[in-house]
């Protein structure tokens, strides 16, 4: 029993099962259900983003746009071509991934900050495309998406949709987990610990950064597709830089290079506006969630570089500082 509980894939599946059941056995209102769905959807995107930021050390400011691309693709193909939902879901992941590969080929050859700049521009340019390419996106009027059907079963209720997103999330977590335990994963981990050392070991930084970026855009596209079929509507303003910044905040606050951290971070960011709503003296301040997130992001980077996922371990470590335990690289200095 103990052995099986230490088996991470098993734990992920078990947790997924339990989480997926919760809405089925309890009585939640629709907005809570929407929130739960959103948390899992953002968690998917955040896990992908975390492979990029946590392992490859690269920042993307265009992930909202990749997510939007997935959303529009899925909405378009299910509505206009009656493509089965699962096929559109896959397509919504693959097309952004191909776009990501091309962008990565250009920007990842260069120094660290160029991907951030290239994706900053990409985000703006793609959002502009969403506005102008009426034939595909229906412009500012927005695109509608159908209720997804899987093998003839329509996921009209949010409880049922939730089961779907949890399954997708667990599958993608297992994929990420297996990837990180493979040869590619070892290269990614070496790169996270020290780019110099990884390079000295013969790891091609460019190749693995590219893999990480492509994967992260795949996850973003999948998340976008799930989002649009949950909300059943999308319009260009949903995919601005603010969403990309929130994704970044999820990953950093949740914990770099940590899968559970990504999920935690997604929950944290989705909860903030809800949480703020209930505090009276904050209610009247517009956009207070954004201030709060920004402050949290800065504080985490400065003081808790491992994020929520390892906050307690880190506090313990700093209390025991006298005993010389190896501190991972980012904490030095």
């Amino acid at each position, binding site marked *: 029993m103990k052995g099986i509980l230490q088996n991470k894939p098993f734990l992920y599946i078990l947790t997924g099962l339990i989480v997926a059941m919760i809405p089925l056995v309890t009585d939640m209102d629709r907005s809570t259900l929407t929130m739960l769905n959103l948390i899992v959807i953002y968690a998917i995107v955040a896990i992908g983003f975390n492979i990029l930021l946590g392992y490859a050390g690269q920042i993307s400011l265009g992930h909202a746009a990749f997510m939007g691309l997935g959303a529009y693709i899925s909405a378009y193909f299910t509505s206009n071509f009656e493509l089965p939902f699962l096929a559109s879901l896959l397509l919504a992941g693959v097309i952004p991934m191909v776009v990501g590969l091309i962008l990565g080929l250009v920007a990842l050859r260069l120094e660290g900050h160029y991907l951030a700049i290239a994706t900053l521009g990409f985000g703006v340019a793609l959002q502009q495309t969403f506005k102008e390419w009426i034939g595909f996106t229906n412009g500012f009027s927005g695109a509608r998406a159908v209720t997804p059907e899987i093998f003839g079963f329509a996921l009209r209720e949010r409880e049922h949709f939730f089961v779907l997103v949890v399954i997708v999330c667990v599958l993608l977590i297992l994929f990420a987990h297996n990837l990180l335990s493979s040869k590619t994963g070892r290269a990614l981990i070496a790169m996270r610990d020290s780019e110099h050392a990884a390079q000295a070991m013969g790891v091609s930084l460019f190749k693995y950064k590219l893999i990480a970026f492509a994967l992260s855009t795949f996850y973003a596209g999948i998340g976008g597709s799930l989002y649009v079929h949950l909300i059943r509507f999308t319009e260009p303003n949903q995919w601005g830089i603010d969403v990309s910044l929130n994704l970044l905040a999820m990953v950093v606050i949740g914990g770099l290079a940590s899968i559970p951290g990504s999920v935690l971070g997604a929950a944290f960011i989705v909860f903030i506006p809800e949480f703020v709503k209930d505090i009276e003296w904050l209610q009247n301040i517009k956009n207070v969630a954004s201030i709060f997130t920004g402050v949290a992001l800065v504080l985490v980077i400065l003081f808790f570089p491992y994020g929520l996922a390892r906050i307690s371990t880190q506090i313990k470590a700093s209390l025991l500082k006298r005993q*010389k335990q*190896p*501190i991972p690289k980012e904490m*030095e200095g």
Partner: protein
Amino acid sequence: MLKLEKVDAYYGYIHALKNVSLEIKEGNIVTLLGANGAGKTSILKVISGLLKPQKGNVAFNGKDLTGQSPDKVVKQGIIQSPEGRQVFPELTVKENLQIGAYTQSREANQSLEKVFHYFPRLKEREKQDAGTLSGGEQQMLAIGRALMAKPKLLLLDEPSLGLAPLIVKDIFSIIKEINGQGTTVFLVEQNANQALSISHYAYILETGKVIHHGPAAEIKNDSKIKQAYLGGH
């Protein structure tokens, strides 16, 4: 003039300096010898304020310098010509020298003449980007740049590194001349023979510890020490 007392310094968990004490007497050339990675540069970093020691202290003419910021140390009259020359490649020779005089107010021009007196080559190349100089010229510039601060104590980190023997000879004789004009010199070297021959006193460092010290002439003639620590010859 300068005293290090029981200095311990770390990089993260690497214990780079272990209980290092040394003294540099005014007017002397003191040399610090040791193999690669012994901690020589770290000692200079502690003196210059780039590396804060965990324990111990640094005193200059009786004043405590421990943990002072580098610009304060320079203002006290201690300046360093760092390992690998580190000239500013996209500044001209003259601008490099001007930066050396950053802490000096007005009389920079006077120092400029003095530097050009030691290193006439630099005057010829005054307007050239430092990155275009040869290795030897860059070393002259690095030393000249340090002299611009009118130091009481000049720290030189491996000035002979990677230079042709003839140029090394030149550089060492200029170091001697600078010392003759009244500047105390702390010379870090791996080139033991030549360093010892111009120095008054010497320290030998191994894996972060001072393992021997004495008048340069004695060490130069002590074949046992040379055999054991300085790679024979």
